[in-house]
């Protein structure tokens, strides 16, 4: 009898086990492939909320505010930035915005058709509340735009005025940052924000981490499903944007899905297998996928560099290290000894224009920015790289010689020994750092690579007093309404030196009074000639002083598509002017309205 009971128990336990497995399977959503657009390379962990004012949240598909164009699948911005031509296309906004003559007040209208998912109108009050709550709880909106926007005031329900912050002399602090606000900030509903504040007793941390189960959205997609395996958004068929004043139709895919992969390699395998349609990931030698593997994969451009390069990953010198701070010659010598062709061909597998094609400056390789400075005036300061003799001569001249005959140069009797750092697993950057280290070997400066985990790297290089990293890699911002000023600032603004938890710029803690002054002047200058002179001077300082040196150009987002299921993605020269921004960012979202099924 005992045995029988035991058997029965075992059977019961096994059965329960099987039942629970079955129920898990049933919960797993099966999405029709022909109605789903799969993404890769954006979401790396379980999403923690759909909270648009929690700018610290990790929900990449639903809430990603960024300068090159915020992701407007679920929440929307006033304007959509297009990094191809720098234009702003109205989304929630109606028509163009208008500055007054002093650049102190900007008037913006909101589309009549713009509605929230609960059917109420998007109004000036929503924009105002989104900005105010940002300042109150000090989220990304508050810290990013609070210093530049004094207040936003409603004229009527659909019209509001942004009052720029002004200095004591009555000049606006920075009108360019107000432009950024228009295209980067995701607008949330005022009523919903009030509800969130109330249930969290106005505690800033709690508000930012609110799970936002009841969130109200204005975009074409909303939450459908998420777990530790994937996140799925579903189309909102009542989306206001099907009004003729906006898109006039709904986006084509019914579902937006992102499987959460372990790493780049897993994502790459899935992309090649056609399980991902749009991939935001650096794929080394991407041309082999079509040249040799015959896969239906394509990029925005058919030829190298395959994408629109908007930023330049840069090696920053840490000015807290006296050897680097006191020796401009050393900084320049390392920079001119590095073999950039090798970095671009090997580390970037040619997915970057060369420095011969686009000489180094503070500008990204787009035509618009390249036209902003005088190439002739800085031509003498340029370097081609791999100039070992030149670098050695510079160092000898500066007195940084090998005094004890060990093959390495000394400064004040001590061997110059530097490390070159980037996060572990960031393949192309790691390879670039290896090339920098190899250059050091050639000129008698010991450089060893160091690849700590990302968590460590980010706490060290944002600390203004760090002395652990000597040369480290980080990218300035790519594009946005306030570029290239924003980038000049990131490279040269001495006012950014010394601030704690610094994600803004000048990570090398470089200080140059004239450069800092130029950074202040540019936003207030409107005369193109004057502007050009300022930019040129900034570049002259940059190339002479070498506080950092760019290693390659790189797309701000990678955009590769597998046309196994969907086609008619944006391509160069198709006349649609849709940027390759993964069909989601800024004006890139327009691509979703044109997609077609293959065959």
């Amino acid at each position, binding site marked *: 009898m005992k045995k029988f009971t035991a058997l029965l128990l075992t059977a019961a336990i096994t059965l329960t086990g099987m039942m629970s497995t079955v129920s898990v399977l049933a919960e797993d959503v099966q999405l029709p492939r022909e109605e789903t657009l799969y993404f890769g390379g954006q979401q790396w962990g379980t999403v923690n909320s759909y909270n648009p004012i929690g700018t610290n949240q990790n929900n990449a598909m639903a809430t990603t505010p960024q300068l090159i164009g915020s992701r407007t699948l679920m929440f929307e911005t006033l304007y959509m930035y297009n990094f191809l031509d720098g234009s702003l296309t109205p989304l929630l906004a109606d028509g163009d915005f208008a500055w007054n003559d002093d650049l102190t007040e900007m008037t913006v209208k909101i589309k009549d058709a713009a509605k929230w998912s609960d059917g109420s109108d998007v109004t000036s009050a929503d924009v105002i509340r989104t900005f105010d709550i940002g300042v109150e709880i000090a989220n990304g909106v508050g810290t990013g735009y609070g210093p530049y926007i004094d207040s936003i005031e409603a004229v009527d329900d659909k019209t509001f005025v942004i009052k720029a912050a002004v200095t004591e002399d009555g000049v606006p602090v920075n009108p360019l940052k107000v432009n950024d606000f228009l295209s980067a900030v995701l607008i949330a509903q005022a009523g919903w924000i009030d509800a969130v504040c109330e249930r969290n007793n106005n505690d800033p941390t709690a508000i930012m981490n609110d799970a936002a189960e009841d969130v109200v959205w204005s975009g074409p997609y909303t939450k459908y499903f998420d777990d530790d395996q994937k996140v799925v958004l579903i189309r909102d068929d009542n989306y206001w944007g099907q009004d003729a004043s906006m898109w006039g139709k709904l986006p084509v895919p019914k579902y937006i899905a992102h499987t959460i992969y372990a790493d780049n390699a897993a994502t790459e395998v899935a992309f090649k297998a056609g399980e991902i349609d749009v991939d935001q990931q650096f794929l080394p030698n991407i041309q082999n996928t079509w040249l040799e593997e015959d896969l239906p994969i394509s990029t925005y451009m058919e030829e190298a560099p395959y994408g629109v390069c908007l930023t330049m990953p840069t090696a920053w010198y840490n000015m807290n290290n006296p050897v680097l701070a006191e020796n401009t010659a050393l900084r320049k010598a390392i920079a001119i000894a590095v073999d950039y062709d*090798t970095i671009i061909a090997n580390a970037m597998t040619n997915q970057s224009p060369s420095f011969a094609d686009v000489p180094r400056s503070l500008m990204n390789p787009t035509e618009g920015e390249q036209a902003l400075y005088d190439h002739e005036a800085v031509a003498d300061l340029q370097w081609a790289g791999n100039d070992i003799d030149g670098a050695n001569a510079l160092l000898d001249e500066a007195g940084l010689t090998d005094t004890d005959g060990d093959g390495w140069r000394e400064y004040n009797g001590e061997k110059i020994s530097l490390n070159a750092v980037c996060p572990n697993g960031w393949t192309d950057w790691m390879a670039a750092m290896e090339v920098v280290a190899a250059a050091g070997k050639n000129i008698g400066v010991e450089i060893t690579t160091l690849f700590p985990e990302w968590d460590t790297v980010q706490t060290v290089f944002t600390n203004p007093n760090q002395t652990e990293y000597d040369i480290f890699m980080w990218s300035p911002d790519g594009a946005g309404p306030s570029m290239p000023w924003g980038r000049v600032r990131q490279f040269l603004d001495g006012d950014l030196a010394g601030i704690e938890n610094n994600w803004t710029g000048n990570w090398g803690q470089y200080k140059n009074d004239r450069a800092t002054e130029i950074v202040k002047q540019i936003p207030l200058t409107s005369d193109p000639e004057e502007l050009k002179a300022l930019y040129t001077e900034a570049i002259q300082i940059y190339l002479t002083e070498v506080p950092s040196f760019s290693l390659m150009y790189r797309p701000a987002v990678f955009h590769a598509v597998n046309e196994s299921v969907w086609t008619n993605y944006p391509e160069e020269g198709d006349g649609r002017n849709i940027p390759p921004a993964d069909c989601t960012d800024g004006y890139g979202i327009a691509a979703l309205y044109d997609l077609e099924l293959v065959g």
Partner: protein
Amino acid sequence: MKNTLRQIFHSSKFVAGFIIFVGILLLLIIYPLINPGNPLEMIGVGTFAEPGTYVSVYDTVTTETETLKLPDAAVKRLGNVLKEADRQKMADWLSAMEIDVSGLDLSDTDALLAVWKENYDETARPAGMTKAERNYYKRLNASLGSLGSAGKMTVTEKDSSGEEQVVATIGTEDYVNVKDVPNTKNLVLGTDNFGRDVLKELVSAAGTSIFIGLIAGAVATVIGLLLGLLSGYLGGLVDDIIMFITNIFTVIPGFVLLILISYSIGQDKRGAPVVALVIGLTSWTWTARSVRSQVISLRNRDHVNLSRLSGHGLFRILATDILPYIASYVVMAFILQVSSGILAEAQLSLLGLGPKTTEVPTLGLMMNWAMLYSAHLNGSWWAYFPVILMITLISFSLNLMNTGLDQVFNPTLRD
């Protein structure tokens, strides 16, 4: 001694392992003499050049030519550009553009090319055709450019005044002897993601790995041997203490310990010798245990008791009365430790916890970079497969030697 050696070399397994190992060592010594230079030099601009002989195109233009009339040259040349599948694809494109190709013989190259050149339009977007497919046709069309014009190709150079001067005219029947070309490079195993010569790197890396293995093996064996001898011979409290420590190290998985230590040392301090030392320090436990048990069985033998009665000291007894009896075992343990040391380095480096990368190549680092650049996904087998083969051969040969020795020295296995 002589007799022992003869016995050892009678074991076919030992001899096989020995030959492989010596072969590898010879390669390590001889290859750098043939192909000297820095193994980490990045000679290739670009990643993963395929194995093969590379001939300077620039030099061939000015090298003296011979005319060879080879009957199938034209067919081969055509076949390189226009494959069977491509012809079908061309017909598909034409059909998609509603051009009648029903009467066209696809094997008739001239006719096909004529229709193609007349109709193909790069900007056309046939209905239902993806961008990837349109790109394919653009590439195909570009590669067809030189076909059909059976004439000569001229190479020009800009002279000092900027005028184009004809340097050479190349016909379809001109050949150069590879021996006459001043610059050719034979990359037996191609290049890796940094454009480094894989074979050169492999040889240098195998040397480093064997060096790491030897140090790790020596450290582990010395520690294990000392502790095993002491604890086995002395017994009592000393035995208890030593076994207590050994047991603790045995229950903690060695590799986890290895990872933790390597991680906390920090990458900037991890040179090859340090990594070797760490591996050695975490893998001595089983040597200690087995030496101890052998010593326990030896310590009450008559000659040991005699030696003790004669008043010999501890170390003399250990060295002259015990060690010789377990020497063969220690040598075998050492060989296995070397082998596992090499594997441990490879595993560590694969995880990015090996020696810092800029100084010396190691087998593990080569695999680490090959994996980071997805060589295993993009078909660049030469970047990782020879490395795996090398590791396998080294540890295989060491293990073979060990088994051979075992057969000679272990009475229960003796034939």
